[in-house]
């Protein structure tokens, strides 16, 4: 039986008590790959932040746990949000993912450093791990942030437009790698993107936020020409 990891029940999300989206009910199962699609301002980021616990829900219920144990999220934000004033190397940034497991006031155990190196190697970032994070290209920074998300040993990997500003070739490489590693380690993936092509190739399910409405289903059901025309027509009213 497929294990439910995240359940939203009649959820309203928004800022300062003002809802952006209402009546969200959906479920996400373990080891699935779900894409969250939608135009700018459709509520994708608000939904993501609510799931990650960065924003409280306005109303409704949200269950995020596996057998009563809180889930660990590995979050890959957009790389351009970091201040270059921080003189952190790529390795130091990736290592931060392990901070959740290291007790306050304790030194970082060598095993965590070794695991971080392993994650950097897995994403192909080992060669530039000693370089300043701020000086890396957008694609390289994304790889480091994915490595950081993996060092959290996540149940759910959440990616916020990870391929924004990255060329097509690098996008394909990153998403293929994520699909592969998440299947292997049974990690659930939530991918926020504008990229329909990437969704068609990699995701299994889609949550599509369009003009205050939420559409969800399997990729091959929802992203058909007929269904998409129907959604856009409904949206345009």
């Amino acid at each position, binding site marked *: 039986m497929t294990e439910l990891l995240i359940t939203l029940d009649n959820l309203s999300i928004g800022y300062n008590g003002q809802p952006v989206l209402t009546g969200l009910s959906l479920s996400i199962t373990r080891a699935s790959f779900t894409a969250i699609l939608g135009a700018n301002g459709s509520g994708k980021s608000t939904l993501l932040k609510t799931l*990650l*616990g*960065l924003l409280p829900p306005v109303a409704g219920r949200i269950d995020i746990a596996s057998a009563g144990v809180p889930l660990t*999220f590995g*979050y890959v*934000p957009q790389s351009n949000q*970091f*201040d270059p*004033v*921080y*003189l*952190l*190397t790529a390795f*130091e*940034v990736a290592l*931060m*993912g392990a*901070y*959740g497991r*290291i007790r*306050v*006031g304790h030194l*970082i155990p060598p095993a965590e450093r070794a695991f971080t190196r392993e994650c950097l190697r897995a994403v192909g970032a080992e060669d530039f791990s000693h370089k*300043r994070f701020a000086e890396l290209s957008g694609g390289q920074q994304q790889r480091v942030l994915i490595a*950081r998300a993996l060092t*959290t040993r996540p149940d759910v990997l959440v990616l916020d437009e990870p391929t924004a500003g990255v060329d097509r070739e690098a996008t394909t490489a990153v998403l293929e790698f994520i699909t592969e590693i998440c299947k292997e380690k049974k990690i659930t993936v939530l991918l926020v993107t504008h990229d329909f092509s990437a969704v068609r190739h990699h995701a299994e399910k889609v949550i599509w936020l369009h003009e205050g409405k939420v559409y969800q289903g399997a990729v091959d059901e929802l992203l058909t020409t007929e269904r998409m025309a129907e959604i856009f027509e409904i949206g345009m009213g």
Partner: protein
Amino acid sequence: METLQQILSIDFLLRNSLYTSVLVGFACPLVGVFLVMRRLVFMGVALPQISSTGVAIALSLPLWLGFKLTEHGSHSAHALAFVGSITFSLTAILVLAFMERRGRGQPEGRLGSAYVVAAALSILVLSKNPYGEIGWLDMLKGEVITISNFDLVLTAATLTLVLAALGLFHKELLLVSFDREMAIILRKNVVFWDSLLYLLIGLTVSMAVLSVGPLIAFGFLLIPALAAHQYARNMRQFTLLASLIGGATAFLGFWIAYRWDLPVGPTDVVLLGVLYAIGWLTAKLLQGD
């Protein structure tokens, strides 16, 4: 060289001033690194001034209430000044940081206003205080001369505490500063770690203002960190280099001031400024700009 031998001698008359300057020189940049990284440079300028206003008001309080402090520089006066300094520093940093996080208004405007009002207020308060006339105005100008053994021990103990906390909680403080969202996702109590960082900044500023005055305090808080940032390749280098620049300049500044009979505070700060300018020019030349 003769001057150097004199100030290095263990029975040097102004040894406490030298030790305190060097301690402040080493410790302030460690906190300054966080001010630079968090883009709170203006706070680094305003806080020491606000802290010194706290000192001025605390020292004037007994006078306003009709009490008389029997001896300038006594432990009770020092304790009172410390309470005033830490109260004003912490209140200011918490209020300013809270307003900054809300993201409304103009942070630079608030900090600039806080700085100028605090500077004027401290001069006004002390000008009507006989104790202030004697010694505290000198301290506020950066004249590091009369530092008792008690002051030295208190400064050393406080700065050691700050240093220990920065070392022990470095990863939490760095994570919360660099990526707040990630810290929340990793279930770190960001309000607690922010508050701890502000407490450490407030303690360092208060202690530095009390020992060496606001001029040296904000000089050492910011300039070594800004100078080190040009050359450091990683966080460890950044922190160590900033602290080394601060400590070495404090020693060198004291030596120059003693040799040519100059006030220590302004000498230290001008020296820091010169080193920063040389560092900046060298960095630009090396980059080929």
